[in-house]
């Protein structure tokens, strides 16, 4: 079985398992994408991820049905489209792309944004179910401050009690240790697999990373995820050793960073436009986002690792991180997705762009889009921006050739 086949099989298994659990009367959890899932896995709670689901609905070009439903309910067209899709789904309860069971518990972690606090608070209220909140204070300092770590550790301990009350089961600390170990190992394979894109040409087609991402969200803490990422890694390694690039039908001419999430409803056109010019997205901020690593059984270390997500860090960190990606992945250009859904990423993009341009001299472009709302994207604007990027990258290449 190839990793792609395994991926498709696991996605199906993940959703079927969740639907089956609901049928059997077992509780289902809805959780945010970079939450301490170790606690849920330890408790054996079946979990689905609304962000994954909204992305799938977006890619299937079905998002508007749910978005329009939410907007009719009073949600502004200016709020996160994942939230609008998901809250629409909570009412409509059927999508051609994929069905998911409704939750019995909400599990929310604010390390990705404050928007999820509002979104999940609303879900819990709407569905009248309990919510477990992990508040991870924004790090305006370069490192995570000690009193934040203590606060987060306190929340983990409190969440364990809440989970014990919810499941009426004791929390199994031995199993917790095992899950922590496995989660760390899975994250390591995810990172190692995506790191193969450092090789020139990159064996990894960056848009594939977007697909595998769904699984690092929902399968970090179990054997399936561990096997999948190890297999993907091995495939990348084999390809790299043979000197194979990202595609069979074209050569990798330019290597770029894609800043921000995909435009799911326009995935094909955004990908094909890049490929047409031989542009491969070799990395983004996402490989590091799920490289959640800490010492097994170290609750404070775990809290700190989760709080260290890129989106939760300050501009100096973000700049250093992006500079490192440019160097490590031999990047020649950057595409910044000004994603109408994600204010947290958008409103520092301009400053990051200036700093990276100054530090590295590589060109970049910004385009307007959205992660799931198909209305906020223009194919013509996108193509024009990509053409401009190609011209700038080509000029740099030419200058290099001439020494």
């Amino acid at each position, binding site marked *: 079985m190839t990793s792609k086949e395994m991926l498709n099989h696991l996605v199906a298994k993940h959703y079927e398992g969740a639907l089956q659990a609901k049928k059997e009367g077992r509780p289902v959890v809805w959780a945010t994408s970079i939450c301490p899932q170790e606690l849920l896995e330890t408790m054996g709670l079946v979990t689905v991820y609304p962000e994954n689901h909204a992305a799938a609905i977006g890619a299937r070009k079905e998002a508007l049905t749910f978005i329009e439903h939410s907007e009719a309910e009073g949600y502004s067209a200016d709020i996160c489209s994942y939230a609008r899709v998901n809250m629409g789904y909570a009412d409509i309860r059927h999508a051609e792309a994929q069905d998911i069971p409704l939750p019995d518990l909400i599990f929310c972690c604010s390390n990705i944004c*404050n928007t999820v606090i509002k979104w999940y608070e609303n879900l819990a209220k709407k569905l009248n179910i309990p919510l477990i909140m992990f508040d991870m204070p924004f790090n305006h300092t370069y490192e995570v401050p000690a009193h934040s770590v203590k606060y987060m550790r306190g929340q983990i301990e409190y969440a364990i009690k809440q989970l014990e009350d919810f499941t009426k089961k004791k929390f199994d600390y031995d199993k917790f240790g095992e899950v922590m170990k496995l989660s760390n190992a899975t994250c390591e394979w995810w990172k190692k697999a995506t790191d193969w894109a450092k090789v020139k040409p990159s064996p990894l087609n960056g848009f594939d990373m977007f697909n595998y991402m769904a699984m690092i969200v929902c399968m970090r803490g179990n054997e399936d995820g561990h096997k999948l990422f190890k297999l993907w890694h091995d495939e990348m390694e084999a390809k790299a050793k043979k000197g194979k690039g990202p595609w069979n039908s074209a050569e990798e001419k330019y290597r770029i960073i894609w800043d921000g999430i995909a435009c799911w409803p326009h995935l094909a056109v955004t990908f094909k436009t890049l490929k047409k010019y031989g542009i491969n997205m070799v990395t983004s901020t996402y490989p590091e986002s799920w490289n959640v690593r800490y010492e097994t059984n170290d609750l404070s270390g775990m809290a700190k690792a989760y709080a260290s997500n890129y989106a939760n860090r300050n501009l100096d960190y973000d700049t250093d991180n992006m500079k490192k990606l440019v160097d490590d992945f031999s990047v020649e250009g950057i595409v910044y997705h000004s994603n109408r859904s994600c204010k947290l990423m*958008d409103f520092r993009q301009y400053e990051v762009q200036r700093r990276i341009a100054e530090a590295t001299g590589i060109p970049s472009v910004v385009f307007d889009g959205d992660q799931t709302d198909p209305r906020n994207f223009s194919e013509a604007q996108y193509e024009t921006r990509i053409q401009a990027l190609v011209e700038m990258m080509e000029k740099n290449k030419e200058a290099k050739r001439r020494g």
Partner: protein
Amino acid sequence: MSYQDIIKKLETAALHPAKTVTEQIRKTGKDAFGCFPIYTPEEIIYAAGLLPVGMWGGKTELKLADKYLQSFCCSIMRSNIEYGLKGTYNMLKGIILPTFCDTLKCICENWKAAVPHIPIVPIVYPQNRSIDAGFVYMTEELQRVKGEMEKITGRTLSDDDLEEAWELYEEYRRTMREFTDTAAEYPQIIGAKRRHLLIKAGYFMDKREYTQDIREIIAGLKDEEKKPFAGNRVVVTGLLAEPAELLDIFEENQLAFAADDLAQESRQFRTPGGTEGSVWQRMAGRICDQRGDTFLYEEEKSRGQMLIDMVKEKEADAVVIFMMKFCDPEEFDYPIYKKELEAAGIPMLYLEIDQQMDSFEQIRTRVQSFAEMLA
């Protein structure tokens, strides 16, 4: 000075913030220190011998801010960055900025780059306020801010300084609660716009002088005869009710504000501080006890019920929503409390606003029809 003169003084103060702050600096001999929305520990600033000044945006042409922020950013924050870049805030010794939403987090980071000559002290409030770890974190964060203020001012803050500032601020908040209650009984004297300006003046004045002024206004009002009001009374909710021209429309249509749930107004003072423990615990208690606030996580989401209770208690006729465009937290709360208010049979008027708006005709028509409907 008669209480009417004090009202005029405060209205003028609110309409001309730069002039007011300059005068206050001269009068008190203190340096000014900026306070971003939503909450900042003003007591610490005051205890440090500084004059806390509110930074709630304003009407200005947005040009320089585009270097940092896309157009779909809330207008208060775009204005603040614009003012920072063009030097309007140069009189400030520093600013405190809380990271209550994703936009504020970014503004925090952009400020460091865009306005490097005005030092920033970020503060991160806990969202899990009801558990011990959240409460302890809040007290530690407040003490960290105190440390930052000491670095900026070069002055050590004693517990006595803080206690004194805390008492003053608790007194200010008590007085403001009394003011809003009293003002509601004299809608002919304290119309919607005047009410807003009188509350807003507090952001630009030393709280000692300001609290005294408000006390005198309350006393003056209480000497007046209460008259029956021919119009209708509404409870208002949202970030703020600006531009102030909007409020003329409410007065024209005989709509008085019976009470508010505005971030810029009552949310600042409706919750008293804790009564036990250290000054840090009392300060933390005030944040942890705040209910129905969109910027503070609350599993039970009590805002809708709170608005219903306010309408009943104040015998108001409706709720008016001032929705600041691009304010995610406010926009997320709306569908939830809308449903609850509808179920309770309370009429609602939803107005989308931003600070740079200059055409009010559409809003005028809507307020007018709403007032006719209520009458």
